[in-house]
């Protein structure tokens, strides 16, 4: 009897595997490129190696792949990375546009070892959609990734469950995203917020409890169920808190200046300190930077100096000096290449 059951199961699994369609993307014909010219992309028998020593290592396929997301519902990536952190896949459909809602971040496992990552991209589309381009970041910042496999497959139940598990415990809805003061996102499951499923389920139970109230008093069991789910959600919140806690531990034992350097991108704070040391105490200034909130930060750290237009000083950060500026300003101080203080020719 047992042998029979095992044989049937094995046959089912084998037939499922054989029937499974897959499209491997690990081929030079897809013209994998990087938006960053410093990133090296090499194909070999072992797979695809991406490396960069200075900046992030994103790659995208120049050749459209035209994959129906319903038919091939899982993206499987087998890779070894030089560091842990977060990897991310974004995709563009027929309109060829990448979109923040069409991105899938995932936690990387132990570096230096090969791991499989299952990404259920199809759950992000209600109808049928054709995926044409992928923008894949194996991790954030510089490093090396060896991709052994990158393919679209028709996922089995087990693979989809793995993808769901990875998605639920993934970064979306757990990592602090800079907008948490507006909304605390729910962890995601099958492309949607987990809370949606939980609340719909509880709404159904609530409706049953309400309708059966004249016959059975199910109010206490309902309240216990609610408390249980609340506790579960709180446990999930603790995971998020733990992530944020671990992330903030880098500030422990640091001086205020070191902390300010850490919370600002790159060396922006040291640059502002440099400007603070050189600018006259009451002079106004302008800032030219593409950093988000770069001007607001400069206005704050250099206060009480006012940030105004047509000011006698111009702070240029992570930009080369614009020729137009040189009509009215001259290079006054250099913090480093790409970060300068300019002074007006006529004050």
């Amino acid at each position, binding site marked *: 009897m047992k042998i029979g059951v095992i044989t049937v199961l094995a046959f089912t699994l084998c037939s499922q595997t054989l029937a499974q369609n897959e499209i491997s993307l690990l081929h030079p014909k897809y013209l994998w490129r990087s938006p960053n010219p410093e990133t090296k992309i090499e194909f070999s028998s072992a797979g695809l190696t991406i490396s960069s020593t200075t900046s992030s290592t994103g790659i995208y396929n120049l050749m459209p792949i035209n994959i129906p997301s319903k038919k091939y519902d899982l993206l499987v990536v087998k890779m070894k990375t030089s560091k842990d952190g977060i990897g991310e896949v974004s995709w563009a459909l027929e309109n060829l546009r990448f979109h923040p809602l069409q991105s899938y971040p995932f936690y990387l496992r132990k570096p230096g070892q090969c791991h499989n990552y299952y990404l259920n991209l199809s759950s992000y589309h209600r109808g049928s959609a054709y995926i044409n381009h992928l923008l894949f970041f194996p991790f954030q910042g510089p490093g090396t990734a060896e991709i052994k496999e990158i393919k679209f497959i028709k996922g089995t139940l087990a693979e989809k469950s793995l993808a769901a598990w990875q998605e639920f415990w993934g970064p979306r809805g757990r990592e602090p995203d800079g907008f948490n003061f507006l*909304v*605390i996102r*729910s962890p995601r499951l099958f492309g949607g917020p987990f*809370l*949606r499923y939980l609340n719909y389920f509880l709404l159904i139970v609530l409706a049953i409890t309400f309708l059966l109230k004249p016959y059975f008093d199910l*109010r206490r069991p309902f309240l216990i169920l609610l408390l249980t789910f609340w506790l579960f959600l709180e446990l999930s*919140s603790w995971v998020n808190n733990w992530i944020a806690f671990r992330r903030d531990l880098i500030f422990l034992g640091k001086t*205020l200046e070191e902390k300010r350097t*850490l*919370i600002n991108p790159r060396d922006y704070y040291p640059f502002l300190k440099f400007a603070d040391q050189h600018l006259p105490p009451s002079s106004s200034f302008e800032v030219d930077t593409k950093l988000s909130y770069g001007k607001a930060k400069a206005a704050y750290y250099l206060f009480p100096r006012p940030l105004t237009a047509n000011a006698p000083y111009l702070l240029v950060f992570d930009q080369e000096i614009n020729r137009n500026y040189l009509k009215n300003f001259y290079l006054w101080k250099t913090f480093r290449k790409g970060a300068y203080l300019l002074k007006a020719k006529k004050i």
Partner: protein
Amino acid sequence: MTFYLTLTLTLLIPFILGLVILKALLRKRLVLNFWEMLALAFSAGWGGHIIIMFLMSLAKIPLNFITISATDLFLAFSLFCFSFRSFFPSKTDTSFPRKGNLGVRTIIFIFFCVIVLKVLLVFFFSFIKPVIDPDIIRCYALATKFIFLNRTFLGAPAVGDKPPFPFLSLAWPALATLRFDDSILTLAYPFLFISFLIIFFRALKRSFSSWYALIGTFFLSSIPLLVFHASTAYSDFPQAFYYCAATIYLFLFFKTFKANKSASFGFLLISAFLLGISVWVKKSGLYYAGINILVASFFIFSERKNLSWEDKKSLGLAFLIFLLLCLPWLSYHQFYTLKSYSSEALTSLPKLPFLTLGREVVQAIWRNAFFEDNWHLLGILFLATLLLFPKLSFAQPHLYLLIIIFLQWLMIFILFCFTRLDRFIFDDTLLNRLTLHFVPVILYFSIEVIGTYLEIGKKEELKK
């Protein structure tokens, strides 16, 4: 060492002021539990301290540690002399939940530990790094730096018609320590968070058993958006705290009015004081205060036959306290705000597509209450309370809380449908923060109603 000593004094001076204010307010009306007294003294004192700082700015007295502390302590001493006798009550309730069998004590212990851990987490996130959120840098921290450098609130940049509480609250630690350390600006908020938990617990403990009150408090301590805001420099958490604490005490006034008038007026005075402070936190505080005053007026009107001359005097005193507290700010700036939003709502009434907007508002509320993790399962808890316990929900005194919640939602609808704030519905930037201001009231309402149901069940079991 001197820095930490000054930091302790930074907290202690408003606390002393609050303790004296509270004693002067309550006199012999109400004996508070020791922990509740600490929580209220700190929160009331911090509010009073901020108002003093604002008045000092108006009087062109430079804001520094010496001038502010001296004014605080002088006022505290004057109030102490005025209400000397009330400082020695006949008994002080210092009880802490220790009763119950092993199972109950285990539940109490587990929930207590979880709450303590959450509090520690709020402290960690508050002080581990300097302020960084864009709005804080552009507005609150920038104005705080101005106050620190110029020793006055007047003329601070980026303030506009915003009330001064958040700015002066952030500025006080810097003024006291003579150091602009932007990782300790939010010094007061984690302490207000603890105060909130204590106040919530004690309010529930008055009617229910310790384990139930603790579970209710655990719910409050676990609301994700509230916890997040308690560790930031945004003004939404203090607004939620002062308004909700004021509403809870107002509810206790309704609840105890017939059984113990002396205590009930004590609750009303606390409520009036906290509501007065809430007007200083955010512009919306003024509207919230209007809602509470309206509901309190309903209640007083319905109970007009049971009011003695003494009761009327206490009511007048509560209203006077509220008015005195918010009058300086009202006359300084908020009359304009009140007028501008109200007239905008009235004039835009025929112009805006409010039916379409109304649908958008409902969708946004639905999305944020049931799809995201702002409030955990509070949406379902509230719905369940209304559906499964309708008699208790719509019976007095719970009905008054329900009216307050209804009026709060109505206000959100009016704001988004009839003013130019409608754009903030589409980008999700305002709805959750406005909801945060009264979400603890929704939670309190649900816990109260369910607790009453469970207590009734227990009594029935005992009868059998």
